[in-house]
């Protein structure tokens, strides 16, 4: 019985949040890695792109709600996703045309593109804060819980329960659907294959008649879709706060590099690696050990490796370890 309780405890505090957080990171990291693979730079404006997409989703949600349209027990934001995606795609293509294209044509160094993306980051940052403000926005509606901890306890008769928020389930399911479509697209369709070819070897792809402008447009479209979905899921699960999106960029970058930069499947796993290490190392295991150990061995401290204040340190540590021992990511380095 104690053993079961301990397992449930871990499930409630590590596995469920880890899966949710990991899905959010994974979607973000795939976007960053696609930009890196095809356009060949680390896009620092990505966090703010996510915030922008989410902002449009929030505004559209408000509009839909004012019309009296809701999505039953699901959050209305899911209905508003297409609006957010369209706006983000337009915005990305606009910035690509006005800003990034010039440097791509000039074949500028990646560092210059990083600097330029910081300029874009500033602009997006300002737009989001001017339109919706820097404060917290909660736009979640519909059913809040799929299963409450108390219900679970009653059902099983255990001391510990698993609480499952609907946003958590939505996040995981949406991520599975999005990623399946994406990987199908990249691996099976002709356009996806040409994208991979372009990212693998630009000159060879050009020789075989792949149109680079089309590839770039496809990439921005996919990236914008991913950014909006990831941003919205994160906003539904926690709340929308522009600065939080910026902060999320760092673990996303770490996930990208851990998975091998330019490798979407790696980025997907990288997101979960970062999420589970972060949550696993910041969780206080005291209660868990109380269940498992005999009474005389019970720990007096929290048994927490590092406090949650230092979660950046975990991303950083994983990043450094991976860069030192597996510079091409945890999987054999292979672009898209």
């Amino acid at each position, binding site marked *: 019985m104690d053993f079961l309780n301990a397992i449930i405890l871990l499930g409630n505090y590590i596995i469920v949040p880890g899966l949710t957080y990991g899905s959010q990171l994974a979607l973000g990291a795939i976007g960053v890695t696609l930009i890196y693979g095809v356009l060949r730079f680390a896009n620092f404006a990505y966090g703010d792109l996510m915030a922008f997409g989410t902002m449009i989703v929030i505004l559209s949600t408000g509009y839909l709600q004012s019309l009296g349209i809701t999505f039953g027990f699901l959050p209305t934001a899911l209905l508003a996703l297409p609006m957010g995606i369209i706006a983000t795609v337009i915005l990305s293509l606009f910035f690509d045309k006005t800003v990034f294209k010039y440097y791509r044509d000039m074949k500028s160094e990646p560092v210059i593109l990083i600097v330029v993306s910081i300029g874009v980051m500033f602009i997006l940052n*300002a737009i989001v*804060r001017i339109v919706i403000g820097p404060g917290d926005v909660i736009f979640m509606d519909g059913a809040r819980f799929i299963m409450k901890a108390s219900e679970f306890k009653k059902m099983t008769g255990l001391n510990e329960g698993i609480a499952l928020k609907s946003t958590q389930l939505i996040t995981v399911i949406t991520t599975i659907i999005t990623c399946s479509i994406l990987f199908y697209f990249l691996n099976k369709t002709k356009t996806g294959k040409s994208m991979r070819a372009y990212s693998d070897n630009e000159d060879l792809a050009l020789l075989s008649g792949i149109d680079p402008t089309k590839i770039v447009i496809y990439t921005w479209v996919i990236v914008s879709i991913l950014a909006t979905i990831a941003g919205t899921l994160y906003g539904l699960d926690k709340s929308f706060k522009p600065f939080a999106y910026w902060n999320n960029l760092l673990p996303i970058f770490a996930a990208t590099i851990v998975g091998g930069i330019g490798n979407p499947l790696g980025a997907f796993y990288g997101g979960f690696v970062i999420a589970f290490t972060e949550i696993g190392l910041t969780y206080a295991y005291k209660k868990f050990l109380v269940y498992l150990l005999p009474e005389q061995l019970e720990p007096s401290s929290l048994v927490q490796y590092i406090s949650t204040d230092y979660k950046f340190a975990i991303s950083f540590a994983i990043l450094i370890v991976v860069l030192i021992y597996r510079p091409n990511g945890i999987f054999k380095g292979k672009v898209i």
Partner: protein
Amino acid sequence: MRNNLDIKLAFGVMALLLIMVGFVQSWGVALAILNLCLISAVMSMGVNIQWGYSGLINFGVMGFLAIGGLATIVVSVPPVNEAWAAGGFGVILSGLILFVLIASIFYVHRKFQSKYKNYLLFLLVISVIPMMKLAAGPSISAIESIDAATSGFLGGFDMPIILSWFVGAIFAALVAFIIGKVCLDLRSDYLAIATLLISGIIVSYVKHEEWLTRGVKNVTGLKRPVPFEVDLQNSDWFVNFIGFLFKGRLSKASDLDEKIILLNELVMTSSSIFVKLCFSVIFLIVLITILVFSEKALRSPWGRMMRAIRDNEDAAKAMGKNVVKRHLHIFMIGSAIIGFSGAMLVTYDGLFTPASYQPLRYTFIIWVMVLLGGTGNNYGAILGAFVVWFIWIESAPFALFVINALMSEVDNTNQLKIHLIDSIPYFRYLMMGLGLLVVMRYRPKGLLPEKIINN
């Protein structure tokens, strides 16, 4: 010749703008802008040394500024004796343990020859945090519980605050040494991400280690290298000096009472201006000293070597230059200057607020300064700092003016107008982004491009 003219012209225009602010707004505002311009100029010179001289991308500026700020507390705040008695031993012990652990990590990494080396290294690294907790945990909670509302931290060494600027530089250089050892051989974009993460870690350290910095409770009432306004207002020589300075205006007063009231007012305003002026003089001396040294360094064989490494690393390696070591040195030097300016900033503010360190404001704005001013050119970096800080401060009144001008027809209770006026602070980000993009596109080398030095 042409370049010289550009520099003089640019700085002339900048000075004119500041004087204009003095006349239009007030001299206090103008001097406040000038002082922060000077501090920012020191910061941007630090970044310029790293990025402009040798092409190292350091997005950890915020972290080094926070380290400089930390130094002001450690050096200048009077010690809290009860806290030292309660937990001083534990903290010192844990510091020693940390030092031994880091030294042994370096030793194992360098000298150890065994197939278990990596496992040993891993064990050592992960043991750092539990060891620190074990050694310092009880002392830390003892320190934080002493007088938590007013102190609850160790305090410092009660020394002159100017000293802390140098200590801040040394602290920053030491941290840069450790970071550089780990990260500097990374690719440029990885280095950018790694330094950004590190600055996040440093700032969360400063924010959450209350025994050291009081964390979000802030440390206020720091010492100053210049007199306080209140002391000035109560000192005879200053009142006499003001009386002498404004003789004309005072003599116009009709009776004695009015004269005293006027004198009081003048003393009040001029004391704050006088203090700011003192700061300006000190900051100017610092700026010029650093400028002279870095210009000299740029022209020395050392500077030539750095440029060679930046422009063609492989060729420099082939010529027998130790690129990794040079990079480490320049990373330390640049970070030291940034740490120095971080301490200056906290000294000028008179308070240390860990929560205020945000990457946009303290990392990327500094980068905009360097890129806008002129990468690799110290005068450019200084000019960039002046221009960017000026825009940063003056864009709010400017945006307000534009909004009012455009919407003068609209009622003041209009929702859109209220919303726009509320979000004025964010227009400066817009200006920064646009400015950066325009400069990168049309003047990629910045306003004052790097001069080709033939020596």
